[in-house]
């Protein structure tokens, strides 16, 4: 916190000052990689949207006679392709409904965090002075805290409702947007197109939203993809600790926490929900990576401002959820 705002400055500033124009790197072939990440995300979204149609069973259909059935191929049947849990519920169906829970929560939180963070970042970077100091000191204070512990405290003390869960997830991400956008605005403030706009008498609002915001959109989009991945992990972590979505609503995290008790006897209970998390998170990370390579101006032109700004800021959150 000793100035995480500044921290970013320290990270970025030396590079910017000594910026020799980077040699134009060969653009990566986009198709494949964007396609891969996008395909995974599209599949996950489809599964989430049509969970009722896709899932072979209900998420809370219990049948104790069929408890702890192994997956098909290792003694199980196609009726419960990925096995059943201790209450005889179908693991595959619960993963499918869990996709809905996780994606819905992560997506809505990313959108809210993006809206809040981008707005505050724009204000902070453009207005400077007191509002900048105020916003950045909140950012610093938050970043000096162990995020996961605060999230746990919040959920445990105020109750694990959906609204609280979204608040906690938004809390994770808004900082990233705010810092990124602020630095981007600062680096753009002195550029010609802004000076020209000022000289032509444009209002602050017009300059911010017509001239600066569009330039901030690309990095914000990249951040969103990575934050989606991050928030899926945060949500499943809280679920694993019993502080996420409450039963009987299935979520990947709570499935893992319930499966943990059977770690020695029913391997499928901890294996498959984890794979669902990894595949989805990987999809979002792949998409973010590809998007960044496609949008990073550094790779397109030699005279990009804030050399490598993207790369440094996009992932720079301390306080890991690990």
């Amino acid at each position, binding site marked *: 916190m000793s100035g995480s705002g500044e921290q970013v400055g320290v990270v970025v500033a030396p590079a910017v000052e000594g910026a020799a124009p980077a040699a134009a790197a060969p653009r990566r072939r986009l198709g494949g990689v964007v396609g891969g990440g996008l395909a995974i995300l599209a599949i996950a979204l489809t599964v989430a949207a049509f969970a009722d149609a896709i899932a072979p069973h209900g998420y809370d259909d219990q049948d104790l006679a069929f408890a702890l059935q192994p997956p098909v191929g290792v003694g199980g049947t196609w009726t419960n392709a990925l096995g059943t849990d201790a209450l005889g519920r179908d693991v595959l169906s619960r993963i499918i409904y869990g996709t809905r829970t996780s994606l819905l929560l992560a997506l809505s939180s990313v959108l809210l965090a993006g809206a809040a963070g981008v707005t505050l970042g724009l204000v902070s970077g453009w207005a400077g002075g007191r509002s900048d100091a105020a916003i950045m000191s909140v950012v*610093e204070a938050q970043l000096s805290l162990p995020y996961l512990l605060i999230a746990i405290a919040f959920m445990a003390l105020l109750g694990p409702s959906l609204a609280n869960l979204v608040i906690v997830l938004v809390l994770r991400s808004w900082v990233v947007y705010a810092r990124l956008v602020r630095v981007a605005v600062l680096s753009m403030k002195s550029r010609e197109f802004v000076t020209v706009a000022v000289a032509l008498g444009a209002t602050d609002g017009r300059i911010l939203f017509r001239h600066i915001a569009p330039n901030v959109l690309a990095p914000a989009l990249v951040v969103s993809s990575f934050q989606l991945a991050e928030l899926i992990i945060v949500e499943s972590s809280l679920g694993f600790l019993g502080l996420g979505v409450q039963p009987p609503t299935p979520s990947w995290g709570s499935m*893992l926490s319930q499966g943990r008790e059977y770690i020695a006897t029913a391997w499928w209970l901890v294996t498959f929900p984890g794979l669902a998390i990894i595949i989805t998170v990987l999809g979002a990370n792949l998409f973010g990576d590809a998007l960044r390579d496609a949008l990073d101006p550094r790779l397109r032109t030699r005279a990009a401002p804030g050399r490598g700004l993207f790369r440094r800021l996009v992932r720079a959150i301390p306080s890991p959820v690990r």
Partner: protein
Amino acid sequence: MARQVLRRTFRAAAALLLVTAVVFTLLHLSGDPAYVLLAPEATPEQRAMFRARYGLDQPLPVQYVRYLAQVVQGDFGQSLSFQAPALGVALQRLPATLELTLAAMVLAVAVSIPAAVLAARWRGTLFDRLMMGITLVGQSVPTFWLGMMMIMVVAVHFRLLPASGRGGWAHLVMPAVALALWLMALLARVTRSEVLEALEQDYVRTARAKGLTERAVAGRHALKNALLPIVTVLGLQFGGLLGGAVMTETVFAWPGVGTMILDAILKKDFPVVLAGVMVVAIGFIIVNLALDLLYAVLDPRIRRA
């Protein structure tokens, strides 16, 4: 430089104040410890006595100011669930957390930095693409799931290592590896892109022109100049992990700061939560200040600024 450090410290103190106020309010919004900690059959008089004894019957701002006054004198209050000073309870777990964090960091640095420098040198080759693929997967695997998989295979199935707790080296291996995998991924990505960036600079062309081997160029000139951002990432993650790798600690029942604060939160042991969060936040501040000083050592240009 000294002025800068002073200013930073001042701002850090302000942030700490904000942080404790938020945590304090959050804790007190959440319910009455007199109901959580006393037996259900306790009489109202007993509850009132309990509140009076810990000053919980006062208005919140009064409680907060009183608390701060005590903290300044080094008194973080008594733990409500252990009969011990809250600060002692919080500090007691610090060595375990440091042990796990340092082990994971050493492992991550030892593996990922050489690998990343090679990947940068051989950019676009199969090795590079494989490395990037692995790091992407490494960043996408939740550590707590990886930990469970390791327990399932290594501890339960093959019975090679203990599944949980802290003891000798054998206990440290699995949690450290689980935590390190993610650090490795992060560090390898940062190192690779920084070295790539450095390899495009003029001094690298000079170094090549004067006939240095590629190995010396990448390993010495480029890596040295890429060090600042790498150290930043390492430092920030170290600071962040001071609060304990909560998920890793939970899965492996590692008795660190993270599980301690988690327990205290669930038990509503407010003084311990506050003391713990404060210890972690102060640790983070110190790490950050140390980072600033380190920058000056690593980059003489900063000393003059």
